[in-house]
């Protein structure tokens, strides 16, 4: 496998567990996607190493009116530090509420150090 611009470990998108290839950690083919996914998986304030890492999911009330807008806002806020550092560009966050209380979101962005189209991460809260 060819190495992209930088090395970082590849993690299973949902659980965040590192992925092994044989006895070695598998390298990620989209480094900033790993960072964004790690951020989305983390509740703001819960990472002792970096308390600013993560999304302020605790502020989202899924039953409240405008919950989708809140989700868009907290995700954008969580990823703003990567945008301001120029690590990702073209950030767009969309959120929709299903019939239940679940809110689906789609985060798309570009990694300026990689060729190709926008990267996309979907999730639900």
């Amino acid at each position, binding site marked *: 496998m060819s190495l992209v611009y*930088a090395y970082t470990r590849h993690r299973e998108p949902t659980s965040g567990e590192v992925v092994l290839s044989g006895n070695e950690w598998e390298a990620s083919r989209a480094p900033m996607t790993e960072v964004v996914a790690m951020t989305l998986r983390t509740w703001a304030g819960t990472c002792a190493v970096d308390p600013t890492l993560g999304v302020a999911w605790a502020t989202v009330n899924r039953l409240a009116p405008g919950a989708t807008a809140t989700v868009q806002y907290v995700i954008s806020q969580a990823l703003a*530090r990567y945008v301001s550092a120029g690590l990702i560009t073209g950030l767009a966050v969309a959120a929709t509420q299903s019939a239940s209380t679940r809110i689906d979101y789609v985060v798309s962005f570009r990694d300026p150090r990689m060729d190709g189209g926008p990267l996309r991460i979907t999730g639900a809260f």
Partner: protein
Amino acid sequence: MAFTPRTIAEIRDALLSYWAAEYLANGEVLLTAPGSDAYLLAGMIAITQSACDVQALQVSRDILPDQASNGAIERFGYVYGVGRAPAVAARLTVTVTGTPSATITIPAGSSLAWTDGTLYLSTSTSVALSGGGSGTINVAATTTGLTTTRAVGDVLTWQSAPAGLNPTGTVASVVTAGDDAESYQSWAQQIISRLRERPASGNRADWAAWVQAYTALDIREVYVYPTTQPTTGAATLGCVTVVAVGPAQGNSTSNTRVLGGTPGAALTEVHDYIEGTRTSTGLVTATGTQLRPVTMSAGDYTVDAISVTPQTVQMTLVVNSANAFPFGFTATIDASSTTTSLVLVGNYTTGASNLALQPVLVDVGNTNYRGGYYRVVLPAGSFGGGNTTFDLTATPLPDIPSGTLYPAPGCWSEFQTAMFAYFDSLGPGDTTPPRRWPSEDNGARATVYRSALVATAMAVPGVLSASVTTPASDVAPAARAVVTLGTLLAVQ
């Protein structure tokens, strides 16, 4: 060499830098952006390493006592045999009242209480009341600490009044002021002093240690004048003069810093202890150890109480409105005044000169009140025969007033306390050339500097400006003498 701990961010960034360099050497680039895998891993290691750095810093500080932690100071104290001064319980005398001319038995365990709940156990088993129905008992606080000290005049209440005594007693004097345990900072300073000059072979530190080891007197400070002839004070080889100082006087009327009660007197019991004829607790013994070096005679040294040089202090204060002087004039106290009747020459019952409910300062002398000027709030006066009389039966003065009456600023009590503390911190004067140990540069200045008086007054909340009228110049005491406070007055 001082150890400088790194912050978590510094450690993390350094680690990421090393780590990235390793990857680069292998032809790869490590993603180190915030939130990245490497960033978080380095952050975790940095937190642990930071704790190690902090511990390393503390270890480097614990090497010597000046910056050591409390635990390390305790260990230094144990290893070098320097104990921490324990907390002290206040001991007071209390005036009690009851059946005139009766001798009242005070049951064991009887105690009086202050308003904050502090208990004072009676150490007197009985009290003989005068024809006026009053007598004095000794009490000691059941707990220790600075807060157990009471002011003269404070009213204590019997937990269970002995038969024949009224339910309250009034503090007559402070025998021993309560004190907190020595601070760790002070303890560390003691250890440093010991390390700088180890007591041995009859050196000056040895003399100080011997005198301080005598516990039958409340010796707080010791000053050694090596090669000083005990009687003449002349520089003489083979002679030593030691001056011992008692606890701070505070608001006590007797100068507790003068051990034994007589200024400049030889403390023969300490001399006996050094000769080996008395134990450190003051008991006569035939089996003691002579501490004096055999190469000197017993007459070649002395251990004395401090001599005193009383100094009147008068200061002019500018205070804020919350502590303002209540009026702008003075009044002459008539010679017919008593402790319960203040008589002023002139009419002070009407108009702007009405002194009813005004706080005033009256000079009651130093015998029964430290500093002389006593603050009292006057009741309504009565004018007759050219004089105004104020009945002070409810709040009697400590002694007969005389001289001039002055207005009392709101911060008088704080000012008084600050001045008492300043004078209580002074040490004895030095010889020429200087021989005192510890020297003035190492603490306990002997000279009263007018600027120091101003600084002391300025530190009192509410004082905006201060100047010294008396003394007119700095006061330097003679060798072995301490400048003490005579009359203290603040005017506007």
